[in-house]
């Protein structure tokens, strides 16, 4: 009931924002080069729905692939680094160096290596997501009370059991903080990846509209990206609430 009401409030908020947008453009005579009417933008999307839908799906696929790989590798890294501190000391500096490379420079290399494939975009999304997940997983795992670990061990639990039963669940709130961040970052990665030569995707639509100064198409692509980003974030946040029911931040 509470949730339904919150959802309803969200919808009303969106509708109000839409009305405000439409009304402000009309009332203040804002020129379409700056901000077109929302109805004009929606009409443009309705005129070529296939292009936007294909772009949406394509970018979604890249985002999900990069997110899944980044999340998985990040958690795996965290566990490995917890077990092998020596490896952590060796690899961590390299990870940090990798993260200081501007993604734009990295993108040009990825195209050379993977060509114009969906994989190339997923790799960029992965590149942006695995590091925050690694750091947060390690942080969460390290924060586990050593006395709890000692207790489980005294009951005869092996390292695998301790990891599954205690350390990973205890680190979950931290991991989900990173996953929420990764949800947005993977979308950014996918869109940036599409700027390195592709025909389908929200990033392609953005780029095309930007350089043709086609403001209506630009806004249409922005709206699609916003829907994708918000939707994905909401799904991750929902999963967090369900899985980490005991200690989620929201």
């Amino acid at each position, binding site marked *: 009931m509470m949730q339904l009401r919150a959802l309803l409030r969200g919808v009303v908020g969106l509708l109000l924002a839409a009305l405000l947008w439409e009304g402000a453009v009309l009332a203040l005579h804002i020129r379409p*080069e700056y901000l077109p009417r929302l109805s004009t933008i929606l009409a*443009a999307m309705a005129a*070529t729905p*296939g*292009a*936007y839908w294909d772009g949406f799906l394509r970018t979604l696929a890249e985002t999900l*692939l990069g997110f899944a*790989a980044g999340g*998985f590798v990040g958690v795996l890294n965290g566990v490995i680094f917890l077990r092998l501190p020596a490896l952590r000391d060796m690899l961590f500096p390299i990870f940090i160096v990798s993260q200081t490379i501007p993604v*734009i420079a990295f*993108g*040009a290399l990825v*195209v*050379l290596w*993977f*060509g*114009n*494939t*969906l*994989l190339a975009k997923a790799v960029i999304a992965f590149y942006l997501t695995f590091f925050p997940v690694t750091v947060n997983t390690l942080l969460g795992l390290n924060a586990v009370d050593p006395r709890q670990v000692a207790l489980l061990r005294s009951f005869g639990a092996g390292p695998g059991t301790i990891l599954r039963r205690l350390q990973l669940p205890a680190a979950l709130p931290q991991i989900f903080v990173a996953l929420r961040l990764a949800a947005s970052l993977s979308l950014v990665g996918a869109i940036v990846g599409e*700027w*390195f*030569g*592709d*025909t389908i995707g929200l990033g*392609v*639509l953005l*780029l*095309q*509209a*930007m*350089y*043709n*100064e*086609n403001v209506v*198409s630009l806004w*249409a692509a922005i709206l699609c990206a916003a829907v994708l980003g918000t939707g994905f974030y909401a799904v991750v946040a929902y999963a967090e609430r369900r899985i980490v029911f005991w200690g989620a931040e929201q």
Partner: protein
Amino acid sequence: MQRRSLLAGFGAALASPALHAQTLTRASLRLKWLPQAQFAGFYLAKAKAKGYYAAEGIDLTINPGGPNLLTENLVATGADTFGLSGGTDSVFAARDKGLPIICVGVAHQVTPFFFVTRADGPIKTLADFRGKNLTAWFTGANYVLLGMLAQAGLRAGDFNLQPQQVSVTPFIEGQTDVVTATKYNEFYTLVSRMGRDKLRTFVAEDYGITFPRDTLIVGEAIAKEKPELVKGFLRASMKGWREALAEPKLGVDTVMGIAPTLNREHQEFMLTEIGKLMLAGKAAREGLFWIDQDAIKSAHDFLLRYEVIKQPINLATAYDRSFLDAIALADRRA
């Protein structure tokens, strides 16, 4: 291990478009930008209904470009077979750096951009650029502008030249006095928002400077080992372009089939202007993609004078006309 093979399998499945006929040679063309009428002829030649590349035995993939891609690098590394690269300037730069690419055809025979001012503004001649705010792309257009202004006796410091960003809105809003515009893209925005009669243009060729652009490039090794592939690619591209220019509606339809969110009116404008650029100068007589050695040399000497390229480049090697020469004149003409 399992994960890796899974990922690899997924990647391979996505990377390879279904089936390829065994007899065709696989090749790719890297464009300098996203699909738009600027490349209509290539897309038309590839279109299923036409299949001109397939008829030449080529299974061609057209890869679009982007703002951060250097076509020369992609062709030099073999990531792409052919490239429609920046222009004579970027070919010089690549050869200057020792990249193993050569130019086998030039699409735009003359400078495709010009400098635009307000028709009712204070700028009537180049000398009036003194003390004004100018913007140009710092990827070559800036040198053209400096070269033109030098002829009017102006040097750096006499005016305020800034790198131009994506949008021409600052010029429309009156924040700058001079803006650089390609004849087929930015100029469309300017004309549709300000009106043609409100604009004055300064063309490089009027001041003895010329910058042929949109160069077709290929790796040196492929040019040497597979000359038939290069010739076949050129022949098919010419066929596509001939039809796109003769039937602009077909050309625009083909492009908009690939990128439906484009503005049709803009694309029609673009194709008309691209046609003019491709048939200017000697191309009218010698045919599409003609390599005008005099124009190339003029651009080369100009950039050398401005020390954009450090040493003279062997133009005969960098611009190889033998592939064009091998195609009958009737097949080259638009």
